[in-house]
């Protein structure tokens, strides 16, 4: 089990990160410029890590599949970013934030990692403000906050409904600054297709130039994957169309372990599906729940329009079931409660697959101007998509796949089980346990990239100074390149009759039904068989038109091939965990009131999976979760 040494530093919870930093090895400034680090992904985690390492003096190669680094999916986060600044004097502290996050994660994350996240949160706000991120301000000029789901303090900083975009532009501009200084070389429209190991260490990648189709070799002293989450596996999700698991999955097949694979968050406030050709379930920021009230009709088969239903015939089910947190209950709980009402036949909208998010009370109390200032862009977006003015009638919302708490297993230093391979941001598994709190995602991505990796990566690089310069002429590069070329050739030669999207949509529907908001043993076992069959069909019936140059179908084929393997592991992971925790709700394990029933006796560990070969069962490792500072309690928001 040496593979699972989390390397948690000595000392009390409050001292662990300082103790690590005090003892971490350093690289002499003169040596830094001789070392190269590859950073895949240019979202908040990737761009911030690349910029911060470049500022220290390392040479960086930065990759993204989008047409420019600024488009990475961090851009889409709307609501905000948490930090324990306690500017509101409402009882916040690093410890409180740590506790909220570990409780929100249903006690399935590492204490030391979560504490560090809270500890570094305040510095991120300082950093972002220095970069020019235009956070919301009060009239006196000081930073404003709002509250978010799962907490009772106001610790969320925001820039209208575009917090992710503004933070990302800060990181992107820092990256461009370093490119101008010659420390970073960006490779846009490039996709990583394999990881290269030399002597068991990550020493490079194989990438494909998505414009020319050329396969390239890139060597480095360390490789960082900051490639985001894989919620797009469900096809319909809040994620961007290009979001994928390929980088982490291909690293997994080279030996990097995956953890918490089936812990996937469904966001409660998304736009419902309205038709067969739909490609996306748009997210409406959770911040809307600050002022919006969620309800469904009390009577089944309600035909009246929302406004015509009297107050007494409305079921504000979150306020009813969870009076202490009400509409600001955590995401997993809110999503499940919506699904419960929809499945029970109380859904609203043309497909009866939604619930109301109603602003009439807030509009009456605060006035339209105030609501417009807070959420104007979200209301405008809602109208563009649905043609409905949400100032006059309630929004229709529904849960959708949103964030993957699972990902590559990492130790305290963010290193995967492959030496020299680091995973940052949503691509790793570590901080959010089985459920992520709102506005902790931007935070984690930034903290990983700005404040943690710049200490832990040099700590690794210090040991690589005398191991020789990695070289793309090494046979390991040729092997990896050949494997990549063989797969692409296979896709091009496969003359079936079904498009990549057919497979993606079929897999997505299957996973929504059987490994989505709720799961059970029978469904998961069926899903595993069905995915295996779908994978066989993919090999025979896939059809790619066009050539091996710029070809979006060819790009998608590789991603869906990976999803077809990852989907099976998701189901295996969900099946193995015979308890309910956070976003993972096993129908067999619930209380009489329908709440998740956790089993700390048998499942207080992270399930960590090892790839053992094609069509071979994954090997399970367990990382026990040791709680020295919090006592495990039933997570109640009542």
């Amino acid at each position, binding site marked *: 089990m040496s593979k699972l040494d989390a390397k948690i530093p000595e000392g009390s919870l409050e001292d662990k990160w300082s103790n690590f930093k005090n003892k971490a090895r350093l690289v002499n400034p003169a040596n830094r410029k001789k070392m190269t680090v590859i950073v895949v992904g240019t979202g908040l985690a990737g761009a911030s890590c690349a910029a911060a390492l470049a500022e220290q003096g390392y040479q960086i190669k930065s990759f993204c599949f989008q047409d420019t680094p600024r488009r990475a999916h961090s851009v889409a986060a709307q609501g905000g970013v948490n930090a324990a600044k306690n500017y509101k004097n409402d009882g916040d502290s690093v410890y409180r934030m740590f506790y909220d996050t570990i409780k929100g994660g249903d006690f399935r994350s590492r204490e030391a990692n979560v504490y560090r996240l809270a500890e570094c949160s305040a510095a991120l706000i300082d*950093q972002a403000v220095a970069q020019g991120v235009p956070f919301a*301000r009060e009239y006196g000029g000081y930073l404003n906050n709002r509250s978010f789901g799962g907490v009772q303090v106001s610790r969320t900083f925001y820039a209208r409904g575009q917090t992710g975009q503004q933070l990302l532009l800060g990181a992107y501009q820092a990256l461009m600054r370093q490119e101008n200084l010659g420390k970073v070389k960006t490779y846009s429209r490039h996709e990583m297709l394999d990881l290269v190991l030399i002597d068991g260490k990550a020493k490079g990648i194989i990438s494909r130039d998505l414009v020319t189709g050329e396969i390239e070799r890139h060597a480095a002293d360390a490789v960082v994957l900051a490639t985001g989450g894989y919620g797009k596996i469900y096809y319909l999700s809040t994620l961007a169309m290009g979001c994928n698991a390929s980088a982490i999955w291909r690293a997994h097949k080279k030996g990097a372990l995956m953890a918490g694979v089936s812990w996937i968050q469904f966001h409660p406030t998304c736009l419902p599906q309205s038709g067969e050709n739909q490609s996306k379930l748009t997210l409406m920021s959770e911040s809307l729940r600050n002022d919006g009230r969620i309800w469904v009709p009390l009577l089944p088969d309600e035909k009246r329009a929302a406004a015509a239903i009297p107050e007494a015939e409305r079921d504000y089910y979150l306020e009813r079931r969870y009076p202490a947190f009400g509409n600001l209950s955590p995401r997993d709980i809110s999503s499940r409660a919506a699904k419960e009402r929809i499945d029970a036949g109380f859904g609203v909208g043309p497909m009866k697959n939604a619930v109301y998010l109603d602003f009439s009370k807030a509009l009456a109390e605060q006035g339209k101007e105030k609501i417009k200032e807070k959420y104007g862009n979200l209301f405008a977006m809602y109208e563009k998509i649905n043609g409905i003015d949400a100032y006059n009638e309630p929004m229709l919302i529904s849960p959708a796949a949103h964030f993957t708490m699972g990902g590559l297993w990492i130790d305290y230093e963010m290193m995967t089980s492959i030496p020299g391979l680091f995973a940052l941001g949503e691509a790793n598994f570590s901080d959010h346990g089985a459920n992520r709190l709102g506005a902790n995602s931007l935070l984690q991505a930034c903290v990983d990239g700005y404040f943690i990796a710049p200490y832990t990566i040099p700590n690794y690089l210090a040991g690589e100074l005398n191991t020789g310069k990695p070289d793309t002429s090494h046979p390991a590069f040729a092997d990896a390149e050949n494997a990549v070329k063989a797969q692409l050739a296979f896709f091009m030669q496969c003359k079936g009759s079904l498009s990549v999207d057919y497979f993606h949509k079929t897999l997505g529907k299957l996973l929504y039904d059987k490994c989505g908001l709720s799961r059970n043993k029978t469904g998961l076992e069926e899903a595993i068989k069905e995915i295996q069959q779908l994978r066989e069909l993919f090999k025979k019936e896939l059809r790619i038109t066009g050539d091996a140059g710029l070809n979006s179908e060819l790009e998608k084929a590789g991603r869906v091939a990976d999803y077809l393997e990852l989907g099976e592991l998701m189901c295996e992971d969900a099946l193995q965990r015979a308890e309910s925790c956070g976003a993972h709700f096993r129908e067999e394990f619930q209380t009489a009131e329908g709440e998740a029933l956790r089993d700390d006796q048998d499942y207080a560990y992270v399930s960590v999976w090892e790839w053992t070969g094609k069509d071979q069962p994954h090997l399970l490792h367990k990382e026990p979760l040791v709680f020295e500072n919090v006592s495990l309690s039933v997570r109640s928001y009542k």
Partner: protein
Amino acid sequence: MKLNLKIWRQEHSEAKGSLVNYQLDGVTTHMSFLEMLDMLNETLIQKGERVIEFDHDCREGICGQCGLMINGRAHGPLKHTTTCQLHMRSFKDGDTVYIEPFRANAFRVLKDLKIDRSSFDRIIKAGGYISASTGQAPEANSIPIGHEQAEAAFDAAACIGCGACVATCKNSSAALFTAAKAVHLAILPQGQIESAGRVLAMVDKMDEEGFGHCSNTEACEVECPQGISVLHIAELNFRYHKSRLLKK
């Protein structure tokens, strides 16, 4: 509904492109414009033909990667909307729809409707940032910024970098894009120190990349998904000339 589509097809940057006719049946009003193209591509795959390449990613109006000229208008008939947020309810049965890439000397066509907008990255690279390395930042509340000032900075910072301003401009000017970033940073106290050098570097780079000059038609503001005001261009020009004059 049934549509007659005339779509720009071009094999690669140097190839000669042309409009190709397609008929598409079964389009519904709640589909997005890009979902309509997905649907068309699915029919092309069934026929064994190469799909129409177009840029897109988030499909929620924020990443800035999508962008098509639709019936001669950047992002289509609606004001302040990205292509992905345009829905088919804006069209009617039997309509003929022309679909072309964003065109400009500084935006090379890669294939069909996909273009290269890396010239925007190079404008930012020239100076569109505040030089604040990680670790240097003071406590965030140590420099108060008035509410209106922060909101004004945001109004400029909201640019998503899609390039509609360039595509719609008869001069292919990137003045609105450049102004949005230069003004966003100049308004904030953190960005003022480098302001003069920044504006010169960014504008000079804009010219060097082959973008045209602004002749105040204000078309860019109409098509900008974020509705960024052309007044930012006036401020950019003011700051540019001031910096030029004061430059030693």
